[in-house]
């Protein structure tokens, strides 16, 4: 982790795009040359990114760190095309320049024991959980990745995962790949089958997260969720990314960018967003 108040100017990088591949319908994987980010990145952290210099689009955009290789000085991003900046990114060629801030935010809790984990990814929520999977597997911690998508080609194919030694359990809404259902359905199935991990980690749409938290609560298992919000500063200064949490019956706003994006799911008020 980075010391908070140390002046580390290379945390603004002009990165070179090394490689870009389409890995699923509307999904692209980008490999960036980014030494400082690669050195410090922890699963669940993100970079705040800008391509170009025009004032429209004005703000940076946050993307989870999808993998980091500190020896090669590289980080990976996994991006789903959603609008202006993501389409511009999808159109970049190797050699293109991307400006990033980061790594930012509070990631997933570092495993303090030898516990096992279920990771529940809805769609592009895979991005940060993949990094967590790799880090946990490297530390030989028992880890099971559950992944849901709308349909088969909305998710990367098997080679994407197998190359890294990852073997996710997959479900699709239309049943065209893996089980028929959602990532939360997979979780329910695993819990019903008696699996009791030490922790659950989840990233995906709000409705999915709400259900995952409830399933965890029913089994008395702690759930960590990676939340989204529209960010401006991404460093905790503007209070724009507030997410509501309930403490002692009153609402309190926490900053997705700094207090999170990873939070204990227990108190998050999903019904208010």
């Amino acid at each position, binding site marked *: 982790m*980075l010391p*908070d*108040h*140390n*002046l*580390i*100017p290379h*945390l*603004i990088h002009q990165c070179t795009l090394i490689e870009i591949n389409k890995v699923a319908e509307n999904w692209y994987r980008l490999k960036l040359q980014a030494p400082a980010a690669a050195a410090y990145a922890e699963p669940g952290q993100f970079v705040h990114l*800008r391509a170009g210099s025009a*004032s*429209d*689009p*004005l*703000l*940076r955009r946050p993307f989870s760190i999808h993998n980091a290789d500190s020896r090669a000085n590289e980080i990976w991003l996994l991006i789903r095309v959603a609008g202006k900046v993501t389409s511009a990114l999808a159109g970049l060629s190797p050699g293109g320049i991307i400006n990033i*801030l980061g790594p930012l935010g509070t990631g997933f809790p570092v495993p303090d024991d030898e516990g096992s984990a279920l990771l529940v990814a809805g769609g592009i929520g895979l991005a940060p959980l993949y990094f967590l999977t790799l880090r946990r597997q490297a530390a030989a911690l028992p880890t099971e990745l559950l992944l849901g998508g709308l349909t088969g080609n909305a998710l990367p194919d098997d080679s994407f995962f197998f190359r890294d030694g990852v073997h996710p359990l997959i479900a699709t809404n239309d049943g065209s790949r893996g089980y028929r259902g959602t990532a939360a359905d997979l979780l329910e199935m695993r819990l019903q089958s008696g699996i009791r991990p030490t922790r659950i980690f989840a990233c995906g749409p709000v409705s999915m997260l709400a259900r995952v938290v409830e399933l965890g609560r029913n089994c008395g298992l702690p759930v960590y969720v990676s939340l989204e*919000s*529209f*960010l*401006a*500063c*991404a*460093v*905790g*200064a*503007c*209070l*724009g*990314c*507030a*997410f*509501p949490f309930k403490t002692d019956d*009153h*609402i*309190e*706003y926490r900053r997705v960018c*700094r207090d999170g994006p990873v939070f204990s799911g227990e108190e998050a008020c999903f019904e*208010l*967003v």
Partner: protein
Amino acid sequence: MNLFDASLTVNLAGISLANPLIAASGCYGYGFDYRRWIDPGDWGAIVVKGTTLRPRTGNPPPRLVETPSGMLNAIGLQNPGIDFFLKSIRPQLPELQCPVLVNIAGETLEEYRQLAAILNSVTEVSGIEVNISCPNVKRGGVSFGGDPALVEELIGLVREVYRLPLIVKLSPDAGNIVSVAEAAWRAGADALSLINTIKGMVIDVQKRRPVLGNITGGLSGPAIRPVAVRAVWEVSAAVSIPVIGMGGIMQADDALEFILAGACAVAIGTANFINPAVAREISQGLRQYLCDHGFSHYRELIGAARP
């Protein structure tokens, strides 16, 4: 001429600044969040987040939305309140190594007066910026800022209890920004900050409802720069207290527009979100401009675009 001969120091209403760049209220927290990227001492001064008497939870999300060359925010003055500020933040302020000003907001005249009275004895705080122009709160905020007579009364009350530099922050939403500026000046303001954000809204056409939880928000960023430069141009001609210009400053040329229009100093808000090192880059750019054009102090540029 050497780049470092070009001097950027300024005395702003009694506060000495190393350079005319001020971190704008609400965009820089309490000054500590950006320390990974820039030394707080690179700023001439830092204005902290709008502070109220009691803690405020702020507005429901979403609080932000991007617009063409701008953004809307509706934070709703979320802040831990003045007591927390005094207890937990005040002791750390000297670490920032530059003057710190507190932006204050109240729901009533009396609240403004109390806040000012409390801060009058806080030596770590070099001055206050009285926010009578926040578009994002139901009571107070811009509702005070539109009526010159009310502004004169409010600033008069604050002036009675506050002896240090007193800055009043205005918004063009008031319509008659020059009359409001004159009222604040008459009531004893030492300087004026302009502009605060302009009220706007965005509608989500898929969901058919306003994007922001608060429905409306305040527009900042380059989109509003022409409006802000015009406000500085008009107000600086009408009052003889210093004007701090802000609104969409992203680079040195933008800061120069405000200075040439009549601003003695400039504040930078939204640009920090895009480039956390913006203050350092703008100081360098200002020095370069002074060198290139043979000026020895940026003071020579203040209002220089006026015929």
